[in-house]
């Protein structure tokens, strides 16, 4: 579990510093990555978030078919994580 959060932090920093992940998106993802206890029961969404950060591309929707993840995907997963966190949709 801790490995997953560590991977998420590393991937987010990599995409923020060397890739094109904007700060406004990197910040809430890092918030998740740095609070493993708070999101411990949300492994599924955190794994999804990690996959989306690793394959983040600003132009994911630009071609004939979707081949990566864009900011809308990450925003949606963050919303899902936090909805579940509030308990409105459960874990």
């Amino acid at each position, binding site marked *: 579990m801790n490995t997953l959060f560590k991977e998420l932090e590393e991937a987010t920093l990599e995409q923020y510093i060397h890739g094109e992940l904007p700060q406004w998106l990197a910040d809430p993802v890092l918030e998740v990555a740095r609070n493993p206890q708070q999101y411990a029961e949300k492994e*599924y969404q955190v794994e*999804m978030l990690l996959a989306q950060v690793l394959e983040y591309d600003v132009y994911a929707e630009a071609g004939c*078919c*979707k*081949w990566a993840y864009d900011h809308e995907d990450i925003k*949606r997963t963050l*919303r*899902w994580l936090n909805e579940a966190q509030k308990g409105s*949709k*459960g874990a």
Partner: protein
Amino acid sequence: MPIYLDCNATTPVEPAVAKLAARFLEQDYGNPASPIHDYGLFARAAVEHARAQIARVVEARPDEVIFTSGATEANNLAILGLAQSALAEGKRHVITTAIEHKAVLEPFEALERLGFEVEILPAGADGRFDPHQLAAALRPDTALVSTMQVNNETGSVQPLAEVANVLAQHPAWWHVDAAQGFGKELEQLRQKRIDLLSISGHKIYAPKGVGALIARKRAANLPPLQPLMFGGGQEQGLRPGTLPVPLIVGLGDAAKLALREHAQRQERCRAFRVQVLAALARLGAIQNGAEAHCLPHVINVSIPGIPSDQAIHALKEVIAISSTSACTSHTRTPSHVLAAMGVSFEQAESSLRLSWCHLTPAVDWERVIDILQQLRQA
């Protein structure tokens, strides 16, 4: 309850997979085709995540994964779905092997009724077909070659790398029924020459009722499949119907675990196999298929002097196993796989398939041996 040793028939569902699937039954139950609110959006995200998890196992692209109800449907979609384009190109020759599952052989029979010439390659005593015979069978008008990855009855891993070489310069579509090997033998299915791959959820610790056809693109185009059902645009128009999100999520998670825990699972299965082989050796069992080509979690044996149906019945309180002879009391027809391998009728009638997994608990092999030895003396 007896110990379950019939994992080639179906595997138990991995507890983490069952928990995740239940969550999508009870809480996140949206329809991915309704992405107009968060329920639909989350369901769509989960389906796409599963698609990527499955694609990763065979190094395919997520958009090459087409969800189906299982490997049978995937096989049908691959084989029958190519018929129209083959006929349009004037190609009427198709090739498969004698040891395929009925879910491949019967669609080939359907092709024959459509006017295709079906060529069936034989198998050897080792449980494998011969790629040289495939090379000899290929013709300019060969439209499709369908070969399984791992035989369901014997566990024999088929020579796919050699097939890839044979087909390297031939344009025929190559379909592989990977129901028994996906997530268990990883390297073979990463071969880019394979155009179409059928996989099943319930063979890799996911629920029943879900599988996929992985259709690799050639020059950015999917193989020219035609749908077999109509009524919606799901799965790129190839497989209409509302997507079963809990099952798909389960399949995706099972694929993830198959990759992540591959080495540990293999190790557990190999350790279990040592005990199985030791017990069977004391009974004078004869292995059907070559041990060198067998996956570590399955074995097919004939125990001389003990008909398989009697053995299964006598052992039913200790272990749950199956016969691969497929005998029925009224037809006594032996397994088509064992028959193709040249196994005698008597040997086929005493054949047993034992298949286990990383979740299988210890078996009291002394008791198994005692029961079978008493049965032989009776």
